[in-house]
């Protein structure tokens, strides 16, 4: 069943079509939500919210973009807005930022390179982090990222480049390790 037929059947209220749509796209949505939040509970909440919105707004899907891209754009909106609203996450970000700052003052804590990379990714602004995770980790193309975030693919490339530059700066003191 192609996307167009699937959408028509969802619009007609067929429960099996709704389930088919969910099965087809849930993995990508959940994975992205988890990559962004790092918490199963939040990833579930955002994934559920994404599909609830998608089913509610299915009449608005015009087929201009692929169905997967449309769902991904809802997911990105849900995740980015959700993260903004969650104070708990903000507090955690601040703590991580502080930890990263302390770490850069010296290597007393001797963090593992991978830990530092994790902190550095956490410290990226959300708009860079999502592009970095979608492209370098989840393997989306710049066209897909641009369409799902409502920006030209060139902007996606530029944001990825900035994200990598920031990571490189954050990990400068470990240069010998990744170069080896």
């Amino acid at each position, binding site marked *: 069943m192609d996307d167009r037929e699937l959408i028509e059947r969802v619009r007609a209220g067929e429960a099996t079509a709704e*389930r088919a749509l*969910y099965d087809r796209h*849930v993995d990508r949505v*959940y*994975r992205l939500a988890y990559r962004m939040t790092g918490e199963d509970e939040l990833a579930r909440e955002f994934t559920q919210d994404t599909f609830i919105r998608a089913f509610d707004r299915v*009449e*608005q899907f015009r087929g201009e973009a692929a169905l997967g891209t449309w769902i991904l754009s809802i997911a990105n909106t849900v995740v980015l807005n959700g993260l903004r609203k969650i104070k708990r996450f903000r507090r955690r970000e601040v703590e991580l930022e502080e930890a990263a700052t302390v770490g850069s003052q010296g290597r007393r804590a001797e963090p593992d390179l991978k830990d530092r*990379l994790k902190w550095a990714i956490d410290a990226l602004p959300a708009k860079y982090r999502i592009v970095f995770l979608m492209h370098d980790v989840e393997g989306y193309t710049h066209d897909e990222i641009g369409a799902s975030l409502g920006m030209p693919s060139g902007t996606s490339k530029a944001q990825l480049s900035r994200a990598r530059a920031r990571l490189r700066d954050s990990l400068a003191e470990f240069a010998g390790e990744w*170069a080896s």
Partner: protein
Amino acid sequence: MTDEKFERFVHDAAREYHRPPEVPREEMWHAIRGARTKTRADRRAFRPAWIYWAAGVAAALVLGIGIGRVTGSDGEPAVASGAAPVSEGTGVAFELATTQHLGQVELFLADFRSSTQAGRSMDEVSEPAHGLLATTRILLDSPIAGDGQRRTLLEDIELVLMQIAQVSGAAPKEELDLIDQSLEQRSVLFRLHSATAVESAGTDLQGAL
């Protein structure tokens, strides 16, 4: 170190960043189904207050007509027709019902307009439009409709409500535009607003006296 080496390192190492566990498909699907079922039930349970008011208005009109039939001004049964004389009690009941009804139609049409402008679904508009249409027709058949501005207003309202009552779900834009044109060309909202303002003042004064 080269860009290439750095990118390879990041590419490999970042895969461990927030590595997702197995996707809890069934649990999430269950939650989605539950939330959607609850939302539908809430939507059914929640009806804007004007639906109940409209039902109340209709009931008041039926009562008013009943009173009119039983009690004429001279104690003789009156004929319930547009040309029949109206007793004072019946007249007040009709006046109150009309004022309330026009107010509810105004609210409904304003809400309808903002919904169409926001591109919201038209699923919820047909049923209340039918209810308001029925009340409008009762008023048009009542002695209070008269032959003047009020009758013209009620006839225009009837036309617009008939159009809205036929709308459902994702109504074509042309259909919505047509309704919008009817509202615009006949200045329905403006006239409703004026009528309810004047009639409310009259009713308040009557209550104070």
